[in-house]
């Protein structure tokens, strides 16, 4: 209510003022006949008086940029014998970085972090020291990385099923010799049953359906937990882990493992967090490294309950997985809990008959173990050795029968083990002593048909370990049984190691020869390319273009028949990436004979464009010097053309931007040195090639303009007939290219820019043409323009452009056949006719700028000139007719301004009137000759106008007045003293 009343008052106050005799109309009415009298300026003298005095810097004086050079010269003298590194370090200590000194040593963020936990820092540091070797570092590849890989690799097209309640359970219970009491039975079944009486068997699921279903289960687990249905949550987890005992559709098993262990991880986390939260009471929070004594009884009891519940799960596999998933919770019960549990769970896996199921169970246990207690290496090793003991089972009857039933061959069955084994091996070999690795390798060697083991050794052990024994491994791979684990996978694994670590110098060529001998014999193109892809890296790393060429040729030979390349684009792409990553010198790269034929294999457009983009990215990144090498140019033009031609109506803006950026990067790198003609013809060719990408055309225009300026520089401004013709050719290039662009401001700015270049090169009529073109384009500027996908009003951009344009117009000489200031007149007409926003004063701002321009034009000598171009000052030489024309224009403009000020005498516009009035006042002050009485009177009126309705900012007014007084003390400015006296300051009251 109060605020409304206040507003009402303000309105009535204004009305009262409006009711006064309207003096503003009287003032502006009189103003309309004011003539303009520009102040004559002596730019040189003004410039000299404004300039800061240069003070020579004494040795030892402070200067923010000085200390670096000073100390360096000093230390160089002192430590001439010392190494350069010591020089830099000694100097850096004495250097005061202005940025860091502001921050006073510590930046606020780290200071905050330091103070955040003052009590914990000391003790936690101790703990950190103690845990140093028990915490896994960033060099341990986490499970999360493997996840996606496994899901992508182990897929199936067969139908899957999810059975969320083992239907045979009830029947089986009936066969038991003794009877169960009803109550007991239902209690036990409750755990097995998912939802009372529901048996969910989902058959005929595609892989994607399966994944979705599992994701749903994961969600319903979280939901059940959130709604406090802990038993239901447990049931879901049990049912899910049961799915892991099902090995039908065996080729999908690794992926199934990934999906389901995700759910188990979720569950483990939920239980742990729940119990952890029970330990938190109002007073204290349990520290991260708590001991069981700090855990209260309720939390312990709840935890114990979980373990009891899980211990009564009937089936082995769910019991194992669920207990493993909450392994971490042992921390609540006792200090030794985890170290007792891990070996027991490890032994428990022995009960799992299926070797594949059991190896994945081991992998899960190792995963949980590494996470919860990485220092307990014993269990990891035990898992490995237990696995070796059961290794023979893989070739046993049970497994073989199963494979026959499912129609799976041994070479596709064995790789199913790899993810789990790789993981176990990786856990064991992490920071393991060399001796352990050697022992493990020896034990693997001893087992028959050990290709599977060999492969995991190569996948998981340190690359350096493998690389130094490369020849041994090649020997072992050769000895492996043909029918078992596929050999190309073994060579692939070896190749992966060699890409990371270098084998002994002497072995390198032999290794390549031995490996490639096997690889080239691979019949299946998929097997071949998977292997070759890996070995390309090794080849590029250690050998020259000759070997790389041979390898590329071999790949082409293998992949061309039956268009096998169509199925292997990712691998082929990866080969290209590896090659270009190693050959930064593009002249060498393109002289690899088979490189371009290799590119021809990318026949699918999207892939080809991807590859081309990669090549260009690398080129831009690594090409240091501009080039004119015809091999590079031809090849890259071809590459760029390919990418450019992929642009169509559907191409996204982002994609276009990327492509344009890449092509521009290339264009900037092309230089024919002093052969400007060649350079221009390259730009002509490029224009015809890349006409669909606007940013490229813009770049080309800039490049050509630059070329023209280059030419001018070489000729030191004095063009010969030949260079003048060349420069005109450049200008013509720009003139005909600009209209093909779409962006209106792009065109305007380029017209202006190219006009300036033309002017600088004494192409006067061409410059006129550019400016005229720009002027005739202005009416087309729309009200709103699209900037980064958003519609914005265009006026501010237009204002900016016009101001820039005016600055150029100052020095453009008049055409002898046109009238005086014909460009300015034309521009004024266009501005007059343009439909401006009613609510903005931009038009008047522009007129004010025009006034500034005209004032500058009426000076005897202009503020700046273009070398070797006579501007109007020397053309007219202060001719009175010219000045009269100029003044006439000024009067028109002023009339417009005053007219506009008058229209602003409305309530809602008073504020605008005030600020515009003040700005006009300032213009007169800066550019007008205030010795002229009428102009003087006008300025006084404007001063009053600015203050009339209390809209003016008092501080600005005070400052302005101070400025006038200060100016009045300068020579020839005495008349300002009198003016200052006539400018009263309005007080707030």
């Amino acid at each position, binding site marked *: 209510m109060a605020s409304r009343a206040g507003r009402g008052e303000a309105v009535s106050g204004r009305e009262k003022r409006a009711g006064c005799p309207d003096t503003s109309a009287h003032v502006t009415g009189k103003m309309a006949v004011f003539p303009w009298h520009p102040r004559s300026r002596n730019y040189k003298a003004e410039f000299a008086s404004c300039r800061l005095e240069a003070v020579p810097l004494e040795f030892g004086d402070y200067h923010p940029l000085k200390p670096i050079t000073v100390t360096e010269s000093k230390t160089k003298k002192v430590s001439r014998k010392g190494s350069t590194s010591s020089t830099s370090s000694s100097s850096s200590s004495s250097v005061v970085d202005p940025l860091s000194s502001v921050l006073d040593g510590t930046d606020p963020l780290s200071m905050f972090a330091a103070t955040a936990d003052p009590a914990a820092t000391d003790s936690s540091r101790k703990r950190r020291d103690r845990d140093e070797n028990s915490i896994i570092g960033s060099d341990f590849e986490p499970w999360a990385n493997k996840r996606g890989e496994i899901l992508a690799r182990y897929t199936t097209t067969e139908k899957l099923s999810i059975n969320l309640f083992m239907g045979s359970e009830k029947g089986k219970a009936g066969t038991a*010799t003794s009877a169960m009491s009803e109550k007991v039975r239902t209690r036990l079944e409750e755990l097995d049953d998912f939802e009372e009486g529901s048996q969910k068997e989902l058959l005929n699921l595609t892989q994607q359906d399966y994944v979705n279903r599992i994701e749903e289960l994961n969600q319903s687990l979280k939901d059940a937990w959130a709604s406090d249905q802990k038993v239901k949550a447990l049931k879901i987890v049990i049912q899910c882990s049961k799915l892991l005992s099902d090995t039908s559709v065996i080729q999908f098993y690794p992926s199934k493992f990934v999906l389901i262990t995700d759910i188990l991880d979720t569950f483990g986390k939920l239980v742990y967090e729940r119990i952890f939260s029970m330990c938190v009471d109002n007073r204290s929070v349990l520290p991260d490294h708590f001991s069981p004594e700090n855990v209260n009884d309720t939390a312990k009891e709840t935890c114990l309950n979980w373990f009891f519940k899980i211990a009564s799960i009937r089936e082995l596999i769910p019991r194992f997985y669920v207990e493993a998933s909450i392994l971490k919770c042992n921390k609540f019960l006792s200090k030794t809990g985890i170290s007792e549990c891990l070996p027991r769970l490890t032994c428990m896996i022995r009960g799992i008959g*299926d070797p594949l199921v059991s190896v994945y169970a081991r992998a899960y246990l190792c995963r949980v173990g590494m996470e919860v207690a990485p220092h307990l290496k014993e269990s990891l090793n035990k898992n490995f050795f237990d696995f070796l003991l059961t290794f023979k089972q893989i070739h046993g009857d049970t497994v073989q029968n199963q494979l026959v039933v499912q129609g799976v061959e041994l070479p596709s069955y064995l790789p199913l083990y790899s993810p789990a084994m790789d993981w176990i091996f990786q856990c064991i070999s992490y920071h393991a002593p060399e001796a352990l690795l050697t022992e493990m390798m020896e034990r693997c060697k001893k087992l028959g048909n050990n290709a599977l083991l060999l492969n995991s050794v190569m996948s998981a052990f340190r690359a350096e370990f493998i690389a130094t024994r490369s020849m041994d491994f090649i020997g072992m791979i050769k000895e492996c049984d043909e029918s078992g684990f596929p050999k190309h996978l073994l060579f692939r694994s070896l190749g992966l190691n060699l890409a990371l670590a270098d084998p002994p110098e002497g072995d390198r060529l032999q290794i390549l020869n031995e490996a490639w001998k096997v690889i080239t014999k691979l019949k299946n193109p998929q097997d071949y390319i998977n292997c070759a892809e890996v070995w390309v890296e090794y080849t590029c790393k250690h050998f020259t273009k000759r070997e790389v060429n041979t390898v590329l040729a071999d790949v082409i030979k293998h992949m061309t028949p039956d268009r096998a390349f169509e199925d292997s684009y990712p691998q082929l792409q990866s080969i290209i990436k590896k090659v270009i990553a190693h050959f930064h010198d593009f002249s060498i790269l393109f002289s690899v004979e088979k490189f371009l034929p290799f590119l021809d294999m990318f026949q699918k457009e999207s892939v080809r464009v991807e590859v081309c983009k990669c090549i260009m990215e690398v080129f831009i990144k690594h090409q240091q010097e501009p080039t004119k090498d015809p091999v590079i140019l031809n090849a890259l033009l071809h590459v760029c053309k390919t990418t450019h031609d992929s642009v169509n109506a559907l191409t996204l803006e982002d994609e276009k931007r990327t492509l344009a950026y890449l092509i521009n990067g290339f264009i900037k790198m092309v230089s024919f040195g002093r052969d400007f003609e060649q350079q221009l013809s390259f730009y002509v060719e490029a224009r015809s090639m890349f006409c669909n990408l606007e940013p490229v055309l813009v770049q080309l225009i800039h490049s050509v303009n630059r070329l023209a300026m280059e030419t001018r520089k070489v000729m030191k401004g004095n063009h010969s007939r030949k260079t003048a013709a060349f420069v005109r050719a450049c200008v013509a290039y720009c003139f005909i290219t600009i209209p093909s662009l779409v962006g209106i401001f792009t065109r305007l700015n380029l017209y202006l820019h190219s006009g300036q270049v033309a002017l600088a090169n004494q192409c006067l009529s061409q410059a006129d043409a550019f400016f005229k073109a720009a002027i005739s384009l202005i009416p087309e500027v729309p009200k709103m323009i699209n900037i980064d996908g958003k519609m914005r009003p265009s006026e501010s951009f237009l204002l900016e452009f016009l101001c820039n344009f005016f600055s150029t117009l100052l020095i453009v000489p008049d055409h002898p056949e046109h009238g005086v200031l014909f460009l300015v007149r034309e521009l004024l007409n266009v501005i007059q006719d343009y439909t401006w926003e009613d609510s903005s004063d931009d038009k008047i701002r522009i007129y004010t700028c025009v006034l500034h321009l005209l004032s500058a034009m009426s000076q005897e000598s202009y503020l700046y000139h273009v070398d070797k171009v006579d501007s109007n000052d020397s053309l007219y030489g202060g001719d009175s007719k010219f000045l009269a024309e100029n003044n006439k224009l000024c009067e028109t403009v002023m009339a417009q301004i005053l007219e506009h000020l008058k229209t602003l005498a409305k309530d809602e516009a008073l504020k605008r009137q005030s600020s515009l009035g003040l700005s006009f006042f300032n213009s007169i002050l800066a550019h007008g000759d205030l010795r002229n009485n009428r102009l003087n009177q006008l300025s006084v009126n404007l001063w009053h106008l600015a203050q009339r309705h209390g809209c003016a900012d008092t501080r600005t007014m005070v400052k302005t007045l101070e400025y006038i007084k200060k100016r009045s003390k300068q020579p020839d400015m005495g008349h300002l003293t009198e003016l200052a006296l006539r400018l009263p300051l309005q007080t707030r009251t």
Partner: protein
Amino acid sequence: MGTSLDIKIKRANKVYHAGEVLSGVVVISGKDSIQHQGVSLTVEGSVNLQLSAKSVGVFEAFYNSVKPIQIISSTIEMVKPGKFPSGKTEIPFEFPLHVKGNKVLYETYHGVFVNIQPQKGKLTPSPVDFTITPETLQNVKERALLPKFLIRGHLNSTNCVITQPLTGELVVESSEAAIKSIELQLVRVETCGCAEGYARDATEIQNIQIADGDVCRSLSVPIYMVFPRLFTCPTLETTNFKVEFEVNIVVLLHADHLITENFPLKLCRV
């Protein structure tokens, strides 16, 4: 409406021994104030025989002769008649656990949350080795049809502490038929007797799978079973009734052969 009453016992694991003091609070909460006729708390403990559905008819006469025996009973008045204010009211209580007369308190083993233990047993380890082959089996109709197998193993002790798991090892040395599953079946045998005769009732109270699928030969598989807290108690033998426990090792072969080996257990609490 909306009034609720809850009894909360202080000890988290809800296990109390004779002579100890049972304490807790009664929580009454409701939106409005409640008029009441007083609150009293009664503790009752009794032993009774429940007839399983299976043995109905056989023991009815006998059942009727065994009345529930009350072993503990006490009542305290907590609040005099009056009014509870709205919101939550907590009334603390405590009373000692004393046995009625000269009776002995036995451990409950069935779903009541008060669990009382009167006696301390002594444990002497008693390991058992076992070998199972077609020849060792009883109750076989046609021994010749059985596939050959040899399973060896041992239990670390058949005298078990109830809070400790049953442990041991089992090795499938050889088996012609593939193994489907190996399970541990925990059975409780209750016997009630009087002058007219006795009733014996065996109940499976837990079944734990220790091997799933065709396990690796000659590799020991651990035997490990946690005794369920609610369904087990120390082995008990009195004049009126007995509670005993047994474990069966059940091996399921392909072609549905079922082999069971039985071991009586003696459970006690230390």
